């Protein structure tokens, strides 16, 4: 007899419920494979989001057995609990339908944290040489591989408690730009992350780095922002 998985999937919006499906257990099966099987063979009305299936696009994150995970790179064998999988939408974000969340608040906070590169030169200027081994470049590199999956945002207690908190991903992005020698946007960026809801709201619980599928450490980036903004404030470069 082939082994089955009892899969509970969140259906509807915030006030709805989990629905149980039975899916055949397969070798090397990912959680995204399970959700896709349900949508294609058991219930075509199931809504979920994915794109690349190889851990690059950051669009398939969901809550799997209580933890936020990238479902395309999460093998069922690693997370299954007594033959059961409970899959819901990401926490701390509005649910559009079923497993798909509205990522707009997440990306709006990237913009609030001045997460866009502000060039210091024009295309007519010669390209600036940045030594890869420089301290600032290495600090920028440590924070740069974020895929915007929203897992850290869903895992963060401070985001849950404080709707204005910019969140680990936006602050991690700000830290990578603070260390980018080519960027000219730091005065506005430091003011944005030093305001209420910025880096000083972080409690350093470190759920972001615990759950980050890219093994980044947003807590360390936020600590860097705390140091940098504190120094800027004491030097009179920031008004609070």
């Amino acid at each position: 007899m082939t082994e089955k998985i009892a899969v509970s999937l969140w259906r509807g919006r915030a006030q709805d419920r989990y629905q149980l499906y039975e899916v055949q257990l397969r070798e090397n099966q990912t959680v995204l494979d399970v959700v896709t099987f349900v949508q294609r063979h058991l219930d075509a009305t199931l809504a979920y989001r994915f794109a690349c299936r190889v851990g690059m696009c950051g669009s398939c994150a969901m809550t799997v057995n209580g933890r936020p995970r990238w479902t395309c790179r999460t093998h069922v064998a690693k997370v299954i609990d007594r033959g059961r999988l409970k899959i819901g939408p990401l926490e701390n974000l509005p649910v559009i339908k079923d497993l798909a969340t509205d990522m707009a608040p997440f990306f709006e906070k990237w913009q609030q944290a001045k997460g866009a590169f502000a060039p210091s030169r024009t295309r007519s200027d010669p390209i600036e040489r940045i030594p890869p081994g420089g301290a600032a470049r290495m600090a920028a590199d440590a924070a740069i591989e974020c895929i915007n999956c929203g897992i850290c945002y869903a895992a963060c207690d401070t985001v849950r408690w404080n709707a204005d908190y910019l969140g680990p991903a936006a602050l991690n992005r700000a830290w990578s730009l603070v260390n980018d020698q080519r960027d000219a946007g730091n005065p506005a960026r430091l003011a944005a992350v030093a305001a209420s809801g910025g880096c000083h709201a972080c409690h350093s619980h470190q759920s972001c780095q615990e759950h980050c599928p890219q093994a980044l450490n947003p807590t360390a980036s936020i600590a860097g922002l705390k140091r940098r903004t504190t120094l800027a404030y004491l030097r009179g470069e920031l008004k609070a």
Partner: protein
Amino acid sequence: MNVRLYVLQRATAALMAPLVLVHVAVIFYATRQGLTAADILSRTRGSVLWASVYGLFVVAVAIHGSIGVRNILAEWSPMSERHAGIFAIILGCCLLALGLRAVAAVTLP
């Protein structure tokens, strides 16, 4: 919490760390040596040193504690950040008044 409150809270914490140790050492000394209230008052009354130590301690506690309570209320209660701030200012003023009153009672000659 913005950077100004963050700096104030960290600075007062750094100030309180040695002051708490002094306070605990004083308690141990007073109880171990069996000092009476009259013995203690005879040493603290008119002392600029004890008035400064405990006066500074009270100011640091009032600032540090009220910022902490403000953050807890803003995060864990339905109170808005502005209302939590107003409540914290009132709390800080009360702590300051009560603390300074106590310091004055044992240090004024």
